[in-house]
């Protein structure tokens, strides 16, 4: 398929009309002047030149080579997917220990199936139990009255 060998002569003649479309006189003098003025204004604002941030440089690279944008997007997606997958593998309470060959690597104390709610509560309060996390703080509970004090 060679487009030049096909009969598109009339169309090409018509397309020649586009070459006769010209901007207003003096436009190109203004264009370069405007570009340079904007670059200078940007430099004064610290947005271009030496202070040009790595992020802006990266964005400008995307403009030059859009494939970088695709690669960057793919990398971000891969990172997100791997994050989601690894979060799915987070150990669930009650079965926190990894098993090898069916036996737990570390045996964690697990409440017996028939233990009552009271027993569990008692094990987590400071009622003399030795395993409480709050023992060192000597936490105590006192009744509080919200009535106005007559003293």
């Amino acid at each position: 398929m060679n487009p030049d060998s096909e009969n598109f002569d009339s169309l090409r003649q018509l397309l020649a009309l586009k070459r006769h479309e010209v901007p207003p006189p003096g436009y190109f003098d203004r264009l370069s002047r405007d570009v340079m003025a904007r670059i200078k204004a940007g430099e004064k604002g610290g947005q271009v030149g030496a202070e040009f941030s790595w992020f802006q440089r990266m964005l400008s690279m995307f403009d030059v080579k859009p494939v970088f944008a695709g690669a960057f997007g793919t990398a971000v997606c891969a990172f997100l997917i791997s994050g989601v997958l690894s979060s799915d593998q987070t150990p669930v309470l009650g079965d926190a220990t990894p098993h090898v060959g069916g036996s737990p690597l570390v045996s964690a104390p697990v409440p017996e199936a028939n233990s009552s709610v009271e027993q569990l509560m008692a094990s987590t309060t400071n009622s003399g139990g030795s395993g409480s996390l709050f023992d060192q703080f000597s936490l105590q509970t006192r009744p509080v009255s919200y009535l106005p004090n007559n003293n």
Partner: protein
Amino acid sequence: MREAAMIMTEPIPGKPGDALKRPPVGEQAEPVPVEESELVTRARKGDLKAYDQLVQRYQERIYATIYHMTSNHEDANDLAQEAFIKGFQALKSFKGGSSFYTWVYRIAVNKTINFLKQRKNRAQMSLNDLDFNAEHDPDLVALISDKTPRREAALTELQEKLNEGLQKLSEPHRLVVTLHDVQGLSHEEIAKIMGCNIGTVRSRLFYARQQLQGFLADYLK
């Protein structure tokens, strides 16, 4: 006036007033004009005068390409300015693997395509005037002479229809037609600018011409 009319399609000048010699797009083996590489080196060091010369050298072609893609002078003006500003900002990442011309052209083309994707359904044409030579171009006269004696009005109508037809093409197809049939770039140069192979350029050009021929059938002999 003839020179003014052809200014968008002539090769790039080495320096103002010189014989025109366009550097080959993206060629590493071909010698790049020394002056351009010098200007680029100076511009990379922050020499704004050097960059100004580069802008003046390529602004007409860059503007023309964007204008033909958008069919809107104001949009083309904004995008051309942004492309050159972006070019200056990203100059440090320019490795010299291609000519500066190809590199800045790519920036302009990508910016334009991104802009057109965002603009999508709110395209509004703001066409430049035709120069005096259009009325005397034998090819164009042949297309309109048997339709109306009022050449100017017929040319303006033809210009609008042509731009409407171009806007109906997809961006890659419009770009290929613009670069090849309007700007006069070779298939190889277009392939380097668009980052595709020559076969793709050829097939896109063929398809785009077929589409355009269908849109403009009433105006073609």
